[in-house]
C-alpha cells in the first residue's frame, strides 16, 4: 500500500497541474512565498530556453534569466493578472525587454555572432558558408541568421516558432496589434529563410 501511495504521489508530482490549479497558484503567488517558489519551478526552464534561443551563449542566457526572475519576484505583489496565461505573457514581456536591452549594444551582438560562427564551424566539421545545405543546417547557423533580424522580429520568430505562441499572445507581449505581428512575421520569415538559403 505504501509503495502504491508513493507511486501515486510521484505521478501527481510529474503530471502538469490543471489550468485551474495553475491560475490558483498565480493568484496565491502574489503574497505567498511557497506558491511563488512553485511558480518559479514551473516556469524557470521555459524562460531559460527562451533566453538561450535569443542569446545563444549559456552564461549570458543564465544571467538574463536570473534578471528576469528577480524582476518577477520584486513585482509579483503588484501583478494584476489572474491566470497563468497572463503570468506567462507578463514573464515573457519582462524577458523580451531584458534580452533586447542586452542586445542593444552592438559589441555584445558581435560577440554572440562570433561565438555562433565558431560553434557552427566546429559542428559542421570545418565547413563554413553563407548558403547552408539543409542537411548541414544546425542551430549555430540558424542563430546567425536570426541575429541579423531586427530585435522585434527576432522576438516574433522565437516566440512563434520555438515557444508556439499565437499572434495575439505575441501582440500582447510586444505591445503591437495582432495584424501587425502577422505582417512583421511574414517579412521577417522571408528574410530569415533567404539568409538560411531555404526557398519559400
Amino acid at each position, binding site marked *: 500500500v505504501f509503495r502504491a501511495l508513493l507511486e501515486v504521489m510521484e505521478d501527481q508530482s510529474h503530471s502538469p497541474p490543471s489550468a485551474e490549479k495553475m491560475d490558483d497558484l498565480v493568484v496565491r503567488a502574489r*503574497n505567498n*512565498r511557497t506558491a*511563488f*517558489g512553485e511558480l*518559479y*519551478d514551473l516556469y*524557470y*526552464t521555459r524562460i*531559460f*530556453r527562451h533566453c*538561450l*534561443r535569443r542569446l545563444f551563449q*549559456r552564461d549570458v542566457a*543564465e544571467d538574463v*534569466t*536570473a534578471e528576469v*526572475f*528577480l524582476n*518577477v*519576484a*520584486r*513585482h*509579483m*505583489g503588484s501583478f494584476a493578472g489572474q491566470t497563468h496565461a497572463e503570468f506567462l505573457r507578463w514573464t515573457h514581456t519582462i524577458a523580451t525587454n531584458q534580452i533586447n536591452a542586452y542586445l542593444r549594444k552592438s559589441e555584445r551582438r558581435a560577440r554572440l555572432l562570433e561565438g555562433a560562427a565558431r560553434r557552427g564551424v566546429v559542428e559542421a566539421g570545418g565547413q563554413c558558408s553563407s548558403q547552408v545545405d*539543409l542537411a548541414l*543546417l*544546425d*542551430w549555430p547557423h*540558424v542563430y546567425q541568421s536570426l541575429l541579423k533580424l531586427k530585435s522585434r522580429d527576432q522576438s516574433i520568430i522565437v516566440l512563434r*516558432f*520555438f515557444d508556439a505562441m499565437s499572434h495575439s499572445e505575441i501582440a500582447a507581449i510586444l505591445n503591437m496589434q495582432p495584424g501587425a505581428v502577422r505582417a512583421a512575421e511574414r517579412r521577417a*520569415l522571408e528574410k530569415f*529563410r533567404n539568409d538560411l538559403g*531555404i526557398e*519559400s
Partner: protein
Amino acid sequence: MNNHEEQFRSLLNELPFDGSPRSEHRGAVREQSLLAFDEAATQRLGPHSPELSPRRSLMIRPAALLGFVAALAAFCGGVLALINNWLPEQHEVAQLRGVAISDEELVAALDLLVEFDSSHDDLTFDQGIQICLVDHQFRHESNEVSPSDQ
C-alpha cells in the same frame, strides 16, 4: 499556422539544441528570487516602507488624489472669489476718473506746446515771448468781457 510554416517550424525544432538548464544555476536563482520576493513583501507591508514620491503617492492612493483635487479646487475658488469681490469704492472711482481727466489735460497741453514749438521754431526767444504775451493778453481781455456783461 499554415502547412508551409508548420514544416519550417518542425525543421527548426528538430535541430539539435541543448536547452537543459544547470541545476546549480536554477537553485541559486531560486534562492535569490525568494529573497527578492521577501524583501519586496517587507517593503510593501512593513512599517519601514520607503516614502513614496508625491507624484507616485498621488497615483497610488485615492485619498491623496482626492485631497490634492480638493486643495486645487479650493485654491482656484479662492482666486476666483478674490477677483469677483474686488470692486472699487465710489470715491475710488471718482479719484481714478480725476486722474484720467488730468492726464488728458496734461497730454493736450503737451500737444499744444509741441505744436507751438514746431510752428514757431524759426522765431527767436524774444519774438516767441512776445507772441505768448499777446496771446495771453487777448485771452485775458476775452475773459473780462463775460456773457452777463453783454
